């Protein structure tokens, strides 16, 4: 018999239908885990498989949908017991029916949300899935079916597990709503892009909807997918009848509704509510339908958990600002681990109109392997834009690619042997578009032909390891015209050649062209226009630059890359709004602006004060601190409420941010005390902790925020590493106060020098004392007062 891969896309394959529905018919109690019957009632499970084989199904789904360690543990079974039994039952069913059929190891979701939305770590999810894959592959499964996934991050964890623990082909089906979205936000195009990038063998959808509602979604999927498509619908939409879930679509209706789907999808089957009768009727109707032809697409798609960008459909803007090169303030933020500054850079660029954000955190003092993945995860909390991971450290690149939720851009590979060997395997394993720099061991060729030759070599080497050409974005490199007057001309020529000869997508960082010249933006904008005309698909620029964004919008409008001139008109709208915001300030003082919580006014007034010659420390002492004290006192007296306190804190922060660039680093940080704060393990409610952080920062404490659901040892390690003066802990629920107590105990052993301050809805002064804290703060101002009282 041929392998399942040999049949893929050539012969129609039919998955079996619902297992749970059938087992319930056979007496499985409501709410009982169906997977356990693979051990406890093997005959019932085998009988279902045999009925589906009789109906004509050619791929069995093992009864292992929920057979992961999380779900099995409470029942006292191991993954090995249940999964190997289930694969064995499927094999017996095939043997007894003398059928020609395959076994797919069925893997469903863990039933938990991954961090940051839930409490399951990404790598823990990978391990849970790997346990199943190892056993299933060893027991003789022919393929892995990852199904009913409604979160792109969990889906990625499952696919990586399948790739890393076996060589079996991977089939994936996800649950879309009627708009074609997953529960956690990714759409059809984004999911397809990520899965194709990861190298799965077939992609599709199951559950959630009936066949009729799936048809338009299947058609949409086909527009973007060059793999065989799988469709396993429910027997219509479920409804509740006397407490039982029932499905209304009859076998004949199901079969008729599947006929048009068969024209689009090579692999068909059923999910909840379908029975052998549904499958038989469908197979009878659909086996006569011609196999759909799979198309190969040339699009380069990159995605996040919620958005997707097709590179070059309109010239793509890649924001360049998250990069320390030549940026003093950014360097300082990296050295101080000031995440908030980096996150604001991301949001500002998004608001400026960036489509993708480049992320570079490389400094000699920084461990990129630790920092890059952490920054990537933090960025994905504030922006849904796809990210471009920018590092020359292959290890850091791999770690960041692993935790990235979606399909990233990889910046970069080049023609050096070392780079090709380090980066191409990462592109192949994790998926992603990859930027190919036209330089090699001999440097950057001075001719366009030389750069084309390197680009060709990279493309060939990528294709040789199975990375399609469409995933490559060639950067022919921009050099300063001030050093070589022909530099821009050569770059533009190389751009045209590479497009013409290799048919790949192209990208350029344009700012370098003007290095050493005055009025750089003018030159940059002119060069960008020329590059777009020469076929540039993506530009790495500063999206906060009005001139550059206008320039790219104008080029797109002139080159028919801006339907109805929407982008051009929108970019002009921005100019109006920026004119409004730069209108003269209202007649308020800086102190008043802070008291009223007017952030942008506070920042501008601080600039004015500095221009008029005020010393930064004078501004702090005479305006900011008195304003904060005034509001803080009002809060304590019940005249000012929490949101107003925070608005003032944010306005003060905006002012401090302006001052920071004027203060020397010693002035800014010399006597700052350090507070490590965290929401304890198991607790995911962190609003209180976030408020305390803002207030402490305002009073010039250095705050190291470890986030929520933080293990005790992580907190202790941070306290020791940062030489913290205070550790602030929060817990909202009674169920998580024990974790707080445990953290305090550990701190006393390993960091006896710190003072421990606690807060949270269920705590009281007495309770805090009982669990060994030094102090209890009823609110954010009380936390500030305590911290100040330590001198």
């Amino acid at each position, binding site marked *: 018999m041929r392998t399942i891969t040999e049949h893929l896309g050539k012969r129609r394959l039919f998955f079996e239908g619902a297992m749970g529905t059938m087992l319930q018919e056979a007496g499985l*109690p*409501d*709410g009982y885990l169906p997977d356990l019957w693979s051990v406890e009632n093997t005959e019932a499970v085998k009988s279902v498989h045999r009925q589906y084989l009789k109906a004509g199904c050619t791929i069995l789904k093992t009864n292992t949908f929920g057979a992961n360690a999380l779900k099995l543990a409470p029942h006292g079974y191991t993954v090995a017991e249940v999964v190997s039994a289930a694969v064995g039952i499927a094999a017996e069913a095939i043997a007894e029916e003398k059928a020609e059929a395959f076994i797919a190891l069925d893997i469903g*979701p863990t*039933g*938990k*949300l991954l961090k*940051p*939305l*839930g*409490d399951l770590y990404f790598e823990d999810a990978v391990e849970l899935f790997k346990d199943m894959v190892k056993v299933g592959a060893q027991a003789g499964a022919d393929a892995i079916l990852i199904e009913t996934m*409604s979160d792109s991050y969990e889906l990625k964890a499952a696919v990586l597990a399948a790739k890393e623990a076996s060589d079996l082909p991977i089939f994936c089906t996800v649950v879309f709503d009627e708009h074609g979205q997953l*529960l*956690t*936000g990714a759409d059809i195009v984004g999911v397809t892009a990520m899965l194709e990038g990861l190298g799965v063998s077939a992609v599709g959808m199951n*559950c959630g909807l009936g066949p009729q509602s799936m048809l338009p979604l299947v058609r949409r999927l086909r527009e973007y997918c060059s793999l065989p498509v799988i469709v396993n619908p429910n027997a219509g939409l479920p409804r*509740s009848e*006397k*407490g039982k879930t029932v499905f209304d679509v009859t076998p004949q209706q199901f079969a008729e509704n599947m006929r048009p789907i068969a024209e689009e999808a090579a692999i068909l089957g059923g999910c909840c509510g379908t029975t052998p009768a549904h499958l038989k009727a469908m197979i009878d109707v659909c086996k006569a339908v011609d196999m759909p032809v799979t198309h190969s697409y040339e699009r380069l798609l990159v995605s996040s958990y919620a958005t997707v960008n097709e590179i070059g459909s309109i010239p793509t803007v890649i924001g360049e600002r998250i990069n320390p090169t030549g940026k003093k303030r950014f360097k300082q933020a990296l050295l101080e681990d000031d*995440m*908030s500054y980096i*996150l*604001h850079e991301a*949001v500002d660029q998004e608001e400026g109109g960036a489509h993708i954000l480049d992320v570079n955190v490389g400094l000699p003092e920084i461990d990129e392997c630790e920092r890059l993945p952490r920054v990537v995860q*933090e960025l994905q*909390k*504030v922006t849904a834009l796809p990210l471009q991971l920018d590092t020359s450290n292959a290890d850091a690149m791999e770690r960041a690619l692993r935790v990235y939720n979606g399909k990233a851009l990889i910046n970069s590979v080049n023609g050096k042997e070392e780079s090709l060997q380090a980066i191409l395997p990462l592109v192949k394993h994790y998926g992603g578009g990859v930027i190919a720099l036209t330089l090699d061991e001999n440097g950057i060729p001075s001719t366009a032909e030389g750069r084309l030759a390197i680009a060709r070599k990279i493309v060939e080497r990528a294709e040789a390891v199975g990375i399609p050409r469409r995933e490559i974005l060639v950067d022919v490199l921009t050099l300063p015209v001030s050093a070589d007057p022909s530099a821009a001309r050569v770059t533009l020529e190389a751009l045209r050649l590479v497009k013409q000869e290799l048919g790949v997508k192209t990208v350029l960082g344009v700012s370098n062209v003007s290095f050493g010249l005055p009025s750089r933006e003018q030159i940059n904008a002119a060069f960008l226009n020329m590059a777009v005309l020469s076929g540039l698909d993506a530009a790495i620029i500063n999206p906060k630059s009005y001139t550059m964004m206008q320039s790219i919008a104008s080029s797109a409008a002139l080159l028919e890359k801006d339907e109805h001139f929407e982008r051009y008109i929108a970019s002009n709208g921005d100019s109006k709004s920026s004119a409004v915001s730069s209108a003269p300030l209202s007649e308020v003082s800086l102190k008043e602006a802070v008291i*009223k*919580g*007017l952030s942008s006014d506070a920042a501008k007034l601080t600039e004015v004060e500095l221009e008029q010659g005020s010393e930064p420390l004078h501004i702090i002492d005479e305006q900011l601190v008195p304003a904060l004290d005034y509001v803080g006192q009002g809060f304590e007296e*019940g005249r000012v*409420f*929490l*949101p*107003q306190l*925070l*608005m003032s*804190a*944010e306005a003060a922060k905006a002012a401090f941010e302006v001052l920071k660039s004027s203060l020397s680093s010693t002035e800014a940080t010399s006597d700052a005390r350090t507070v490590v704060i965290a929401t304890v393990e*198991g*607790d*995911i*409610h*962190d*609003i209180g902790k*976030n*408020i305390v952080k*803002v207030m402490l920062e305002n009073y010039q404490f250095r705050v190291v925020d470890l986030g929520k*659901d933080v293990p005790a040892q992580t907190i202790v390690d941070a306290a020791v590493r940062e030489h913290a003066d205070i550790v602030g802990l929060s817990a909202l*629920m*009674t*169920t*998580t106060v024990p974790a707080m107590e445990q953290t305090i105990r550990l701190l006393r052993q390993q960091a006896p020098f710190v003072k421990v301050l606690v807060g949270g809805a269920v705590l009281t002064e007495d309770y805090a004392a009982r669990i060994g804290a030094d102090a209890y703060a009823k609110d954010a101002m009380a936390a500030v007062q305590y911290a100040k009282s330590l001198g």
Partner: protein
Amino acid sequence: MYVIKASLVAEVYRYMGVHGNEHSRELEALVSTAIERVSMAASPSACQKIMPVSVHDGRCVTVGERCLESADLASHLEGCDQVILFAATLGCDVDRLIDRDSLLRPSLAVAEHAAATVLIEQFSDECCEQTDRELGDDVSLTPRFSPGYGDCPLSCQTVLLHQLEAYKQIGLTLTDKYMMTPVKSISGWLGVTNEKRTCFSKGCAMCLQRHCAFRKEGNVD
């Protein structure tokens, strides 16, 4: 887009800890921005299921085939032979919005927290009122009783959400410490009774946290 009713906007201020009816222009702008952003992000969904229930020994409640230990739940469901299991969520985009703004603009996050709480309560109340109407005039529903009320442990969430298949139905999951994710979600039981009981204690009056900062005024005992 699902929005907060005008009559419930005052609740947003209450959850933010703001007293009185006179608000500064800046605060009003903050709240209206928060309400709008939460509504844009929310995709409310609910699931429910009716199951047989019985109460034994005043502290043991059997729902379907599962037994829950709670004297307060038992007393709440006394006299009911059926119970509606209920769960609703605003979806994960609201959590994402609040997490994002907590990092960027905490004052707005505080207002969004409050707005989201009001929105999920409003949505849940509407769903339950509709169910009550659909059941007809012969029976009535008790107010919602959620895990964590009175002596009912949070761990009962596991049974409730499992019986509802809440993950499959609306994507609602639990953390190891029994907190719901997405966070802006509500779950609970509503007893179905033939008696015309009219004196149910509801909302704040039902809660044992007598000193809660958010307890409604005039509802102290």
